[in-house]
């Protein structure tokens, strides 16, 4: 690499893991597109994910040895004798992408997508071709690549969880058409996501953001059915709308008195005594972009429609990684909310409202993937709520939730994918008594759901932290209380359909390919181990992240890392985990006397029991609630935008 590419500026050894996590997957994605041969493609995909994992771990290791922050100034790249600026390369690619979106809009006859693409193209073109050359300081003087612990954690999530999902996808997509296109976008997406979390420069971040939008569109429409095309178009329209908001925000930020072209400058500018009013408007619009990406209310319909995509897509894009980009954005800009608390509170209410409402709506769903989609939206709302509360403790909670949600939700999606692959159905009603037919996957799903709702696991810990964080802004506690109760209801209903068995039959584990079972087992082990050892995890990964973001870490651990101490309470996950283990292992292997087995009570008659699920559509169904939910959501977004607009008119009051 050294002979062909020379770079100017301060780079250091970090360029290697950086390339491993971003450039290699993007390149491999490109090559996969052109390769029809299955075996070479699978090998390449394997190499791609391996490079992402190694790069991610190496990068994290480097981070801890360089104090938690690494910045890289990459100005120019010389490739084979031609020298070009990375800024120009990304700008060119960005415009190409936008023109690509226009072409897609033309092809699909989507007016909204075309409109949004134009609305992004024109201001950005003006900004880059007319404003920037005439203003010398428009480029900013900050390093475009900024890697801190938060980027490091996101990179690890993307690389490790994403890689497990891609490996799973190799088996899942066996025998389907257009696999070269599928894997191109899956692996390329990993690289783009990694690049996004490393970008400090707003234009670079925006480019990779739109690349993920493209990947999302391409992957949702992969199966080319009528439904898939329709839902892909809708997803594209909503996420392009968010992108437009971000484009406006970037242009406004770049044309201010002291231009803001990167996140570090954004945080600096909002820390001043008098916050520029355009900054507030831009922040409102950036928040709007984050909300569309994370499918918060009222934008949740695109994520629900995206469930028609193949399950690895749902796992990768729509639960663990792409929708986390919105959450990443909120945590990245969270120090801003210290100086703009009202904006934070509005966002907290939007997030909390999403959490509560999606939990209630999920009760009435009988499609397993839709249930998981609602759950994802809800948990993302919870994370946004915590990030917007801008206290050290709520940030810790947000990061803990992000990590554990990525693992657990990917696990659940992959499990449902296996069920769909084997039984060709995603309906919960068809999973009736699944434990007798497929005990292994049912156990995996059962344990996955237990990691979501039961102490001592990670997601429970997130809720525990969230309730404690509510001490600082009590309004949100109502959302959390109702939402977490509803969460238990819909998960248990689903579990109940799966685990009912008439009598103590011998359960023989079903035969499953290693490419299915290995990612599931690894993810389950990660979920369990990280949950039980959460105190050291918080101590070594999350507290440094919180500190790097500018706060003092509030959560500590004690008793050799077995208990977690917060400012208002404490919990010992190891202790609880041991009890849980004992109570499950001991009776499971106990001997059951055959004589003791008896029939269920059906009033003595011999008719077989037919059991169906309940979905409470009358009170909690989508038809009943969607109108209220969406109107309230639109109202909240209007408040958000109004906040930004009013800031200009009432300059600096807020």
């Amino acid at each position, binding site marked *: 690499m050294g002979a062909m590419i020379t770079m100017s500026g301060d780079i250091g050894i970090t360029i290697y893991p950086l390339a491993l996590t971003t450039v290699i997957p993007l390149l491999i994605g490109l090559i996969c597109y052109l390769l029809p041969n299955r075996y070479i493609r699978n090998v390449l995909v394997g190499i791609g994910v391996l490079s992402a994992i190694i790069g991610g771990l190496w990068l994290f290791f480097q981070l801890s040895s360089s104090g938690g922050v690494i910045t890289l100034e990459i100005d120019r790249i010389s490739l084979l004798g031609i020298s070009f600026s990375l800024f120009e390369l990304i700008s060119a690619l960005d415009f190409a992408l936008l023109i690509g979106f226009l072409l897609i809009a033309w092809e699909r006859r989507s007016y909204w997508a075309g409109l949004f693409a134009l609305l992004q193209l024109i201001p950005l073109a003006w900004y880059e071709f007319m404003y920037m050359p005439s203003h010398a300081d428009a480029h900013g003087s900050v390093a475009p690549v900024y890697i801190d612990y938060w980027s490091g954690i996101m990179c690890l999530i993307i690389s490790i969880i994403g890689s497990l999902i891609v490996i799973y996808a190799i088996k899942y997509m066996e025998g389907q058409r257009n696999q070269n296109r599928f894997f191109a976008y899956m692996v390329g997406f990993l690289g783009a996501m990694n690049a996004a979390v490393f970008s400090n420069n707003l234009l670079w971040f925006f480019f990779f953001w739109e690349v993920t939008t493209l990947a999302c569109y391409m992957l949702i429409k992969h199966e080319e059915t009528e439904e898939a095309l329709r839902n892909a178009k809708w997803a594209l329209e909503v996420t392009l709308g968010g992108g437009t908001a971000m484009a406006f925000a970037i242009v406004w930020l770049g044309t201010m008195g002291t231009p803001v072209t990167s996140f570090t400058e954004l945080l600096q500018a909002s820390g001043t005594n008098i916050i520029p009013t355009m900054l507030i408007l831009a922040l409102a619009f950036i928040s709007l972009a984050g909300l569309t990406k994370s499918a918060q209310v009222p934008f949740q319909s695109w994520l629900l429609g995206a469930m028609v995509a193949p399950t690895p897509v749902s796992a990768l894009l729509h639960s663990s990684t792409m929708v986390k980009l919105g959450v990443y954005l909120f945590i990245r800009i969270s120090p801003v909310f210290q100086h703009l608390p009202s904006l934070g509170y509005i966002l907290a209410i939007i997030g909390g409202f999403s959490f509560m409402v999606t939990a209630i709506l999920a009760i009435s769903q009988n499609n397993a993937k839709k249930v998981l989609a609602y759950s994802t939206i809800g948990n993302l709302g919870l994370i946004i709520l915590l990030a917007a509360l801008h206290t050290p403790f709520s940030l810790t909670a947000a990061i803990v939730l992000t990590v554990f949600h990525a693992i657990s939700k990917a696990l659940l999606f992959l499990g449902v994918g296996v069920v769909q692959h084997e039984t060709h159905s995603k309906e919960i009603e068809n999973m009736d008594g699944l434990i007798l037919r497929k005990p292994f996957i049912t156990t995996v799903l059962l344990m996955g759901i237990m990691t979501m709702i039961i102490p001592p696991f990670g997601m429970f810990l997130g809720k525990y932290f969230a309730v404690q964080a509510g001490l600082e802004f*009590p309004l949100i506690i109502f959302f959390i209380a109702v939402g977490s*109760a509803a969460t238990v209801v819909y998960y248990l*209903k689903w579990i109940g359909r799966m685990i*009912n068995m*008439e009598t*103590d039959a011998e359960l023989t584990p079903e035969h499953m390919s290693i490419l299915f079972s290995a990612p599931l087992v690894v993810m389950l082990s990660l979920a369990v181990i990280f949950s039980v050892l959460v105190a050291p995890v918080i101590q070594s990964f999350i507290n440094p992240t919180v500190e790097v973001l500018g706060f003092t870490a509030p959560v500590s651990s004690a008793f050799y890392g077995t208990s977690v101490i917060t400012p208002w*309470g404490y919990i010992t996950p190891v202790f609880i985990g041991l009890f849980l283990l004992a109570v499950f292992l001991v009776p499971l292997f106990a001997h059951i006397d055959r004589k*003791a087995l008896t029939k269920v009570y059906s009033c003595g008659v011999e008719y077989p029991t037919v059991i169906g699920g309940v979905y409470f559509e009358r*009170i909690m169904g989508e038809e009943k609630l969607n109108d209220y939910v969406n109107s309230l959501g639109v109202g909240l977004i209007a408040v958000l935008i109004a906040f930004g607009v009013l800031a200009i008119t009432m300059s600096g009051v807020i």
Partner: protein
Amino acid sequence: MDFWPAFIGFIFLLLAPFIGMLVIGLDRKITARMQNRIGPPVLQPLYDVIKLFGKEDKIVNRGQVVFAYAFFVMVVLATSLFCLRSDLLVIFFLLNAGAIFMVMGAYSTRSAFSTIGANRELLQMLAYEPIFLLVIFSIGYAVKSFTIDAIYEPLILKLPLALVAMVIVLMIKMQKSPFDISTAHTEIISGTMVEYSGTYLGLLKLTHWYELFLILGTMALFVIIPGNFVLSIIAMLVLIAVVYGIVMLIDNITTRLTWDALLKVALPLGIGLITANLIYVWYIGGA
């Protein structure tokens, strides 16, 4: 940890099931007297449970046994944490986990009554969990900490309405009319407990005693006067007598609500009470 509080906590842990049992026994006796009958002896629940432990095992599948044990362990863990004056939020979530395991055990048998009971139990959880969590949150908000040993004055001074909301939780948890759809005896024959017999039913009833102790204990926290042991005990007994008396009275004169009526009555009432209380605490400077 100081010796005396730990010792008292340990004694309470040992006495917990007996306290639960006595309250349930008194409940049956006084209910009978209200209905102009003599009623069973006060120690009747003890005889019931010991008889159950002496019965033959008859189960449907292994899963329900595992979940029954899980329920028991979680509740006992929560009680021991309560007696060690630990974090109230953890106790709440452990109780929750216990109820979750109970519902899983009910679902794991392929029985119509059990499934309907489990569905209704879930709806009940949707009703009482938010209220319980909000009560604990308001305690944390008033005291600035969730651990029990941080409570420095009787909570009833600041949180009277939260105590009333806690009564609703008590009624739902202990299956008292009008909130007893989950074990509606005449409709679904004890719902979630239908397929349990013998030892495991005894275990469920024992766990029920522990749960009663925990909920009454949480209510007792409202009247504990730190530092004055005797007065606290007297205050707790008076409170439990008054509260349980009112609950028994309402139980005997009301009929059962359907599940949507339950949600429409219990949730707004509970949340409304807590909201009013939280506004009060914020106003007087608790924040």
